[in-house]
């Protein structure tokens, strides 16, 4: 992906963000939630799309980040900005450990190994009440301040989340344009060939998990501060499936794939459900059915995701 090809996306993101000036509080909240999930799906895209390592455990890292944020900010009184690196480092280390099964198994075996991890984390969050509050969760999580300026409204917190997402995306973009990005692609395409070139496939496999997990952990801290309440439900493995779906629907291994996928998977159902357009009001009852059918059709006709439409169109033109 070239620098030039990123501009339309960046302008599009900025335009969407600027609509927040005219949106209701609940819609701004939805945009913030979308930005938080984007942090996690961008991490997942690195693991799954670029490095080719299947993962069904991303919601667990989001949950670990969220609970670290919730516990440290409410019980220990740590400021948001100190919690962020702690959550990132803890998730990075846990991601390294979770990467080890990938050195032995691949594909659906790896998917089940990571799914098992997600289930374990979910059970720990639900059952370790002394630490996590169990199903009652942890409430009153504060919003951060920036140089003494409180980011306590939905609008202010959205811009913080949006700007942080921009920083995370920039860092991942730089990483993927470096030799690391080439090594991840080599690992995904053919590990044996990669090894014959001297790519340390053990290290890159582990880092693919660890970096993806750290991104989700950071997203988790933002989630805790956005919702101001955490309980285990949002970190169930069904959320991991939803994130994987977002990556695949957008286009796994394409930089803006998660952006498009997350918008489609999170925003579209909400927009359909809440639509006030008369022609779309029947969607308030049928939005999940319509959404399910659309995803099935998309996977059948465009297994490379929505962003592969451009490639298909170009191939069609060459064919003519």
């Amino acid at each position, binding site marked *: 992906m070239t620098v030039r090809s990123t501009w339309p996306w960046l302008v599009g993101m900025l335009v969407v963000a600027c609509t927040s000036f005219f949106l209701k509080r609940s819609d701004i909240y939805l945009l913030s939630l979308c930005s938080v999930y984007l942090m996690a799906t961008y991490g997942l895209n690195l693991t799954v799309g670029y490095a080719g390592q299947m993962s069904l455990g991303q919601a667990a890292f989001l949950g670990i980040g969220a609970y670290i944020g919730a516990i440290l900010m409410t019980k220990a009184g740590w400021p948001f900005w100190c919690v962020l690196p702690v959550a990132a480092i803890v998730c990075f280390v846990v991601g390294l450990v979770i990467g080890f099964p990938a050195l032995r198994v691949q594909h659906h075996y790896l998917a089940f190994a990571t799914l098992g991890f997600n289930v374990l984390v979910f059970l720990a969050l639900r059952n370790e009440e002394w630490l996590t509050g169990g199903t009652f969760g942890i409430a009153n999580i504060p919003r951060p301040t920036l140089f003494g300026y409180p980011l306590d409204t939905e609008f202010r917190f959205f811009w913080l989340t949006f700007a942080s997402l921009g920083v995370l995306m920039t860092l991942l973009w730089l990483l993927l344009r470096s*030799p690391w990005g*080439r*090594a991840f*692609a*080599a690992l995904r*395409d*053919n590990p*044996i*060939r*990669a*090894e*014959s*070139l*001297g*790519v*340390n496939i053990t290290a890159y496999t582990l880092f693919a998990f660890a970096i993806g997990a750290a991104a989700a952990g950071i997203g988790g801290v933002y989630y805790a501060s956005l919702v101001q309440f955490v309980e285990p439900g949002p970190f169930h493995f069904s959320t991991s499936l939803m994130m994987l779906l977002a990556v695949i629907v957008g286009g796994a291994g394409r930089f803006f794939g998660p952006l498009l996928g997350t918008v489609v998977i999170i925003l579209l159902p909400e927009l359909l459900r809440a639509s006030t357009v008369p022609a779309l009001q029947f969607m308030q009852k049928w939005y999940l059915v319509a959404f399910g059918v659309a995803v099935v059709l998309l996977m059948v006709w465009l297994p490379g995701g929505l962003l592969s439409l451009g490639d298909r169109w170009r191939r069609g033109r060459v064919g003519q």
Partner: protein
Amino acid sequence: MAAPIIAFDKVVAGYTPSLTILNETTLDARAGEITLLIGPNGAGKSTVLKTLFGLLTPRSGEVRFESQRINGMDPRDLLGRGIAFVPQGRNLFGSLSVRHNLELGGITLPRGELTARIDEVLARFPRIRERIDNQASTLSGGEQKQLEVGRALLLRPRVILIDEPSIGLSPKLVQDVMALLRALADGGTTVLMVEQNVRTALKYSNRALVLEMGRLALDRPAGELLDEPDLNRLFLGGHARPAAG
């Protein structure tokens, strides 16, 4: 006669404990020569290369590079010691550009040195230079093989192990690839090659080793073997005369 740079001494290796491919294989390759490994399917030709490059660990016996034991050594360490491997088939990363494929070949080099090495390789392959920013999958078969060899040369290896370089190439391109390997050997690089296109490969090689059932069955100068009337029979697994020397 050049000194052996690679030696297998009674090496036993295989892909599973119950499947032995190399059966006390003893052979060597000499510095600055092209040594051609031939034999029927399943004779262990590719297994020799994989064992030499650390992708398989010998169960017994000794693999030596420049008289030093390298049994089961990590491929990255072997690259560092000067052994490069071009596996069978298409080995490029098709979704990456030509430049990025070259950069992957030099991933173990310091960044500053990599740029100079890529320029050095591109000077040898002008056609690749012209297509440096193209996606690797858009190159022709011959260009892809040139790029694979060029990528292997980035680390300035002293030994190149190359498995079936002619697969999928037209006869003209096969000649070009063989001429390139000959030029490398003439420049001092040792080439150990597995090739099914035996007659063409023999014309460019110094020496031919015939493997049968994981053992060395014949060791002859390539020119002599080219005149062998029973070459096809040998290649397909017929009885061979004992190894020379």
